[in-house]
Structures are given as structure tokens and as C-alpha cells.
């Protein structure tokens, strides 16, 4: 069964169809990239999936379960992990505590009032930090971590809930090229190990075409192409869109 199944998703803003009848699916362990020029509807599409926005029509199913229009919190509860374009971590905590809090939330142990939080799930948190290569940084404050480390910390936080689907919004934005490849290679490994589906948007076409199993291309809210990197690369419609807007690889 597919991890995520999206059917005929639409959303308009004041008459402008930002997302228009988009359907696709992601399989376990699969990495799916969502690309398109600025204003194509990538962010809207993402926000419809993560609960930030409600669709006008269409459905979103996660593991066969309808999660259409649920709040971000409920969607997270159903096993959707997220990383943000601008990292969002708990700045007043250490890296380990960030992950511990995510573990506590996952195990529904938030409403506990006695034993200090740092005494919960410390080993599990360290294991997750080690998986993303952050073992040495465990005791450092999230506020002072380097940007690339923050991205990896976000990944560890997301993994704490053992998600079936990981949504990554511009995961490599603001990173140096070498770091980008490393981070996405790490994600690739994790997806394979955990049979976790990954849906990501990305500006860096080297990353997209190097990592993704499949690629979706959006333009003006519509899905214009879908397929493996090879077929997308060869698709004349896609070339037209990108050449037409002047945007090429490299991100910004």
C-alpha cells in the first residue's frame, strides 16, 4: 500500500487556483521531489499536506487513512514528520533535549509533572542523534548550533516519532553544496532503513536529480509532469517551463 495518496487536491485564493486538481502517491521508502518555478504552488501543496491549509476539494490519505483537513498537530500524530525551510527547533534546549521532547511527545508522556525531562529517553535520543551524525553535539544548545547541524537536528527530531512520511520543505536551503549532498544522502539512507516515504521540495536541481526516486513538476497549480529523473530531464514541457521562467539549477 502507498504511504501517501493524494487525490484531486485543489485550493484557491481569491479566484486564483494555487493548487488545481493535483493527484499523486508516495510509496514506503520512496523519495519524491516536488519541483516547479516560483509561484507554481509547491508551498501551497505542502501546506495542504501538513495541515497548515485546508483544501477546497480533494483528499489526502496516509496509510489508507483520511487525514484531509486535519490540524498540523493531528497530522503529526498520524506519523508525518517535518523539517522546515527555516529551521524550527527549541532554542532554549540542548540538542539532546530537543530530541527527548520529541520522544516524550511521541510516547504521549507530556503530561508528567515530576521526574525531570532530561531523565526520559536519553539513550534513545542519543541513538537518534548518532544516526544523523550529531552525537558530539548532544549537549550543546540548539541556539548556538551551526546551520547544517540544525538541519540534521531537525531530522533527528522528526525521526523521534518514527514517521511513515517525512515532509521536507527546501531541506538544503542556505547550506553549502557539500553539506547539501551529505544531508540528502543521509536522508536517503534513513528512508531506506526505515521504509519511510519522503516528500521534499527543492531548488537545487543537482540534489533533486541526484537523490529523488521520482519527481513531480508543478506549474501554475497543475501537475505537468511526473516520473523518474531521467524522464523528467527529457520532458520538453518541463524544459519549457524552466527555460521560460529563466530559472535553472543552483537554487538561491
Amino acid at each position: 500500500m502507498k504511504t501517501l495518496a493524494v487525490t484531486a487536491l485543489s485550493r484557491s485564493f481569491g479566484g486564483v487556483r494555487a493548487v488545481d486538481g493535483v493527484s499523486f502517491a508516495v510509496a514506503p521508502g520512496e523519495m519524491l521531489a516536488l519541483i516547479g518555478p516560483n509561484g507554481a504552488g509547491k508551498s501551497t501543496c505542502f501546506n495542504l499536506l501538513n495541515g497548515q491549509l485546508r483544501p477546497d476539494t480533494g483528499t489526502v490519505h496516509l496509510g489508507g487513512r483520511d487525514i484531509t483537513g486535519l490540524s498540523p498537530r493531528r497530522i503529526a500524530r498520524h506519523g508525518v514528520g517535518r523539517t522546515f525551510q527555516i529551521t524550527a527547533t527549541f532554542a532554549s534546549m540542548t540538542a539532546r533535549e530537543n530530541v527527548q521532547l520529541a520522544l516524550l511527545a511521541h510516547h504521549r508522556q507530556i503530561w508528567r509533572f515530576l521526574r525531570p525531562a532530561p531523565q526520559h529517553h536519553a539513550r534513545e535520543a542519543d541513538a537518534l542523534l548518532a544516526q544523523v551524525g550529531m552525537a558530539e553535539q548532544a549537549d550543546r544548545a540548539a541556539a548556538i548550533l551551526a546551520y547544517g547541524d540544525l538541519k540534521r537536528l531537525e531530522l533527528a527530531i522528526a525521526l523521534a516519532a518514527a514517521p511513515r512520511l517525512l515532509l521536507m520543505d527546501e531541506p538544503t536551503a542556505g547550506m553549502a553544496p557539500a553539506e547539501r549532498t551529505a544531508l540528502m544522502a543521509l536522508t536517503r539512507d534513513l528512508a531506506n532503513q526505515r521504509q519511510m516515504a519522503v516528500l521534499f521540495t527543492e531548488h537545487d536541481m543537482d540534489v533533486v536529480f541526484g537523490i529523488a526516486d521520482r519527481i513531480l513538476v508543478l506549474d501554475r497549480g497543475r501537475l505537468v509532469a511526473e516520473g523518474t529523473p531521467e524522464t523528467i530531464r527529457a520532458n520538453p514541457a518541463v524544459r519549457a517551463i524552466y527555460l521560460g521562467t529563466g530559472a535553472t539549477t543552483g537554487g538561491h
Partner: protein
Amino acid sequence: MLSTLLVQLLTGLSGASSLFLVSAGLTVIFGVTRVVNFSHGSLYMLGAYTGWSILSRLPREPLPFILGVLLTVAALALLGALLERLLLRRIYAAPELLQLLFTFGVVLVVQDATQAIWGPNDLPLPRGRWLRSFVEIGDARVPLYDLILIAIGPAVLAALWLLLTRTRWGTLIRAATQDREMVAALGVDQKRLFTSVFALGAGLAGLAGALSLPDGSANLQMDLSIITDAFVVVVVGGLGSVPGAFLASILIGVLQAFGIVVLPQATLVLVFVIMAAVLVVRPNGLLGRPQAIRENPASTTLIRPAEPALRWLGLAALILAAAAPLFVGPFLLSVLTEMAVAMLFAAALHFMMGPGGMASFGHAAWFGLGAYAAALAVKGLALPMTAGLLIAPLLAGTAAALFGWFVVRLSGVYLAMLTLAFAQIVWAVMFQAVDLTGGDNGILGVWPAQWATDRLVFYWLTLALCTAATLVLRTILYAPFGYALRGARDSELRAAAIGLDATRLRHAAFTIAGAAAGLAGSLAAFSKGSVFPGFIAISRSVDALLMVLLGGVQSMAGPIVGAIAYTGLFDLLLLATDQWRAVLGLSIIVLVLAFPQGIAGTAHRLWLRGKEA
């Protein structure tokens, strides 16, 4: 009948204009600088006094009057610019709301300075004949000056609108209101922008103060009597929105004018009921925009449990406090009792304000409810003191849970002002329910039980309960719940993404903070032997806020240090000098400049630096 309605409407509109003039300056200043400027009322008062000094020397004709008012505006604008350049500028980098503490220091200093310069007596401005003339509507009269005020309000609105939309400076101000960082990035000299905005705001306060003279006098109460109303208008209108402030002024002015006819007692609380209603329906005021979600800048500090050395220090302080009765006299014992109560009260506020990210301007509501609950349990139901001490946190917590349901859906200053509104409503109920609460005379004879009558015993009981409750709060903050609460403050996005229910967490925190304040209130009731509406008054809430800010929001030691410092300073200064307001105000200003992270916060930082070196 119709003419009566019309007269009341016009009266309400002129009141609205006066309200708008004070609020316009406040909202402009807040919009750009994000400074919650408590001293705006002081600027208004100084405007009235300055206006009196100028106008009482001029002929009582319209032209000299206009000239005198304009001179006052210029004088206050200059004063505002000076205030900004000499003082406020130094603390923009400090955590949010710390400026509030700072401007409160200014309020205190201005009160004493004004009395020193102009004397304690009210100063009425003699009115010229034209200021006493009127227009007849039916058989009722409407003062000409009311009509003039009605015209001045929209005129000032129009002038501000032109200034904000048709000049480059105005464009920068509007841009800064929406996104301060962006304006900084554009290479605009932010310092000069801030100074000019402060001058504009102060000038408007001066205008309002001077224009209030024909209707009354310059007096020493006008600063505090106007400031809450001005804040209400600003918040109801939407922070930073000048047209919003205008709309809110009209809403409040007109409802007030008719409210007086329908239910005269309502004047006590009407503006706060209006504010609560507006905020429940429109969480960002009438014309305010939702504040962008942003990372809490204060939360960049890593929160750690105190190091062993600090814990030993705390334990030593506690032992010292417990042993204090052996070597201090009865008066200092009563000060220590107050400190213990203040510590718990401040820790309760800190619980929701620091880790919870919800500053409250109305925390005295729960303190006061606890006090009244205990007093009524003992006096009304003849229950023992222990029952009173148990009922107090329960009742305060329950009330906090009810009000909290509305409060936690808001954020920032809106949230703070909604707590203020609820506190004022609770205050008004206690004030007006004379049969139950004795009104402003309070409930007397609430003395401790026989076994605790001895002041030593009561002190130890207070110290034990306050310390224990504070430690419970601390335990909760380091437990999973506290981490989740702090997480929701640090990053709303991330909290939702890991499945945290921020609203529920905050609601629980609000309730716990209310219950803890209620316990503090009940102890205060028994230690004073009485309860008064003053226990719920704004000044009481401000006290708690000052303690937390003075100590530092970012550490558990902050509210404790702040409560001890503030209570000690206040109690001893009150004894030592007639000019305690000036000295206290100056102390606050100096402390803020010296300890921009609060006393405990800054001390902790210095300690860490010492260790790294």
C-alpha cells in the same frame, strides 16, 4: 428624548476625541519601537502641567490658546526625544517587556518631579468666555469646547494619516511597524527614526494633556488614571493602528456616555468589558494584523537547572531565612513574610511568563481571588485557616482555568491585556459586591488560626508553604510538561510538528500559575489580617511583573531574586524617605541599565563568563 440622545452622543464623541489623542501617540510608539510605554500617561500629565504653566500666562482668547497648546506640543516632543535618546535607546536590545519596567521607573520619577515643580495642589486653568460657551440642542446645552474636541479628533487622525502615507518618513514608520528588521536591512537610520517617533508620540500626549485643561485641572492623579484607558484603546484598535485607535476611541467613548445613563456603576469596569469582548471575538483588535509568528528572542538562552554551587547558595539563603527570626526584629520579620509571599506570587507569574511565554498584566486577579476565598471561608463560612489555605488555590485555579480558556488563544500584548481586563472585572465585582466583600473597605479580622497567631509560627508557615510551592513550580518546569510548555514557546511550528497541543499546555500552565498565585494571596490575607480590592488592583499586577522582570525572566532564580529585591527596596524606601517614588524609580532605571537580563539573569551570565575564563 431625541435631543437627550443626541447630547449624550456628542458628549461621548468628545470624550472619544480626548481618548484618541492620548492613544494615538501610544499606538504610534508601540507600533514602531514595540515599547510598552507605561510613561505615556506621565507625558500626558506633563503636557497638562506644562500647558497650564504656559496658558495661564497668556490672554484667554482663542489665538493665544492655540499658540500655547502648540508650544506645549513642541515642549513635550522635545522631552520625548530626550527621553528616548538618553534612556530608552540603551535598552532596545534587552528582552521584550523590559522596557516596560524601565518606563515604570520613569513614571515614578515623574510623579515626584511634578509634585516638586508644581506642588501638590490641583492646578485649574481659568477658562476664557469662549471656552464656556455652548450650543443649544432642544433644551439641552452642548459645550462649544466639546464640539471643538469632536473636530480635533478626526483632524489629528487626518494629519497623522497624511504624515504616514504621504511622506517618506511616514512610509518608513509604516514599514517599521510591519517589519522592523526589514527597515534596518534597508539601511535606514533606525535610531533617528525611533527618536522621531518618540517625539511624535510624546507631542501627541502633550497635545492631549493641554487640551484636557479647559475641562478640568492639571493634577497628580492624571497619569495613572489615563494610562490604562489609553492601553485599552490601543489594544482594542489593534496595536500600531492609528485608525484602529480612532475607531476604538469612538466605540469606548460612546458606549461610556450611554452606559452612564443605563447603569451608572458600570463606569468602574465598562472599558474593560468592552476590551474583553472585542479581544475574544477579534484576537488582534479591531484593525490589527495578526502578529507574525517569530522565534522568541528571549528564548535563545539555554535553560539549565542551577549548578551545584548555586543550589548551595539557595539552600544557605533558605536556612538564613528560616533562622532570621532569631536575629531580626518584628518589623523585618513582617518584611520577610511579605518577601516570601511575593516570591511565590512572582514565581507563579514567571511560570506562565517565562517558560509559558505569556506575560500577564492581570496576575493579581488570582492573587486577589485566593485572598478573598480564604477570607470568606474563614469569616463567612467559619472554616479553619487550613481550609482557607486549601480553598484559595483551588478557587483561584478554577477561575484561572475558566478565564484562561479565552486568554491562551491570544498572544503577546493582546494576551497580556486580556488578563488585565479579566483582573479588572474581578476587581470590579469584589469592589461592588459590598454585602459579600465589604467593598473598598475590605474584609477585616482575617487573622491566622490560634496555633499560628504567633508571628514567628506564621512566618515559618508562610516561608515553608511559599518555598514548597515555588519548588513544586520548579519541578514542573523541569518535568516533561515544563519542557513541552517551553517548547511551545520556543517554536510554535516545531511544537505542532511533534504533536504538542500548545493551547492545552498553555491553558494548564495558566491554571497552575493562577492556583499558585491564589495560595500566595491567601497567605497575604492572613498575614495582613484583611483583604481589600487593592489585592486585585492593576498596581498589584504591575508589582508582580516588575519583580519578574527585575529578577530576570530566563531563570527560575529570577522571580525569587526580583521579589526579594523589589519588596525589600519598596518596604525600606517607604520608611526611609518622602521621595521614595523618585528613589525607587531611579533604582529601577539604574538596575535595568546595569542588569539588562534582570539581576539573576545577568549575574548568572557573569558567573558563567568567569568560569569559562
